[in-house]
């Protein structure tokens, strides 16, 4: 189990070294999506056209995620999401919303000197 968790952490470092704090969330091993209600719908509808990483590396509030869906429907060939839309928005707003960072973050963990204890 420990090994499994480590490999998830390692993967998230490789894929998004400059982005966000490493979370304890369980990630879907195929897509990298946080495993929670609605993630299968997001995976099925979003990764038909683009990489899952285009979702997981972004941070938007609910309104902006909806704007993005509308833009994809208008110009990128995304189909109507029907009843799934609310579930998808709930999921995206819960797991991929902006976090407060200020004008300049500290350097990410992988660029810091090794800490000796």
């Amino acid at each position: 189990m420990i090994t499994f968790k480590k490999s998830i952490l390692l993967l998230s470092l490789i894929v998004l070294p400059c982005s966000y704090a490493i979370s304890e969330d369980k990630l879907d091993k195929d897509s990298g999506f946080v495993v929670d209600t609605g993630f299968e719908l997001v995976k099925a509808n979003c990764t038909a056209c683009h990489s899952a990483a285009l979702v997981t590396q972004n941070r938007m509030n609910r309104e902006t995620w909806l704007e993005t869906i509308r833009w994809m429907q208008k110009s990128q060939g995304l189909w109507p999401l029907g009843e799934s839309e609310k579930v998808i928005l709930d999921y995206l707003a819960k797991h991929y919303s902006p976090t407060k960072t200020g004008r300049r973050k500290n350097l990410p963990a992988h660029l810091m000197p090794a800490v000796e204890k």
Partner: protein
Amino acid sequence: MGAVLGAEVVFGRFMPGGLIPAAFAETTEKFRIAGKHAGLIILNDRPVNAEVPAHLLNDLVTPADKLFVRNNGLPPENVDVNNWTLTIGGESVKTSKTYTLAELKKKFTHHTYQLTLECGGNGRVEFDPPAKGNQWGLGAVGCAKWTGVRLRDVLKDCGIKDDAVYIGYHAADEHLTRNPDKEAISRGVPMHKALEDESLIAWSLNDEEIPAMNGHPLRLVFGGWPASTSGKWLTGISIRNIVHDGAKMSAPAYRIPCEPVAPGTKVAAEDMCIIESMPIKSMVTFPKSGVKHALKDEFSANGHAWVGDKTVEKMHVSIDFGQTWQEVKISKPVNRNAWQHWQAKVKFPQAGYYELWAKATDSDGVSQPMILPGWNPKGYLNNACHRIAIQVV
């Protein structure tokens, strides 16, 4: 197409063939882009987008395997070099002509320049509130040696009407939806940039064929401007009597607010202006951030600095978060639009944690901000000082 289809039906059709093994196309497993260094950071596998960690950009001339990849669509497969053509057209061309690659190489004089290409969104990851799109760190930049013919020579061979204001490119990559009526990207530059000596139609990078993901067999190269103007897999150029209106030319793509705005502001399309020459910037490419250093020794660091159509005049480093700055050596550019190289030697006053900050100043006296520069909706042009961490023991 696909408007009312369920996801299950279309899923398989959109899988890119050839480029990425199907089994990897939707996984977080690290995959290699053919011909690229294993250390590249893959931001996205469809479309393929990958940046280069700072410490891998230490070469004076960026090697082909360490040049970033920013794709908007799906690159052409099975490129036929012998039958590749370039067509010059548009409202403001006197005579539309089509050239084969061999004709281009034979008819026009060859030129070679080192040209800095940087993605307009390089550094996007730092914006707050965040901007959507690929969350580039700082490695969507490189300066390689490009060989080709001058765009000017080819345009003049066809004739440029007096009303020409812009050129727009057309390319062989497909839109992500594979809809043949949509171009993945079709951008351009005003005539004054198109007609400069260093504006090339290139077939060679560092004396070899251009890598597949960087536009093989033919691409435009405009150093110092957003790399999105340097169209890859080039098949056509339109000489326009209006500002080019191709895909990703209209707001908000590759535009920033014409007037500065507060973070998070919504900006109307008509108040967004096209990005042209890129701002002053620098990076520390040696040593790698996180290094341990002995207090008694002098500390050496180096990197590159660049700025759109100007030159880098001065280079400074700071080890006290910008309270004091030390001027360091900066080389002259080998040619216009090439990046320049700096070297610093520093003594630390006592053991502890330090950051080395690098700051370049251009020929107009404009230097880099230490914090994120002005916010913009799409997260372009972050030229905040790069810094590395050092543990002095």
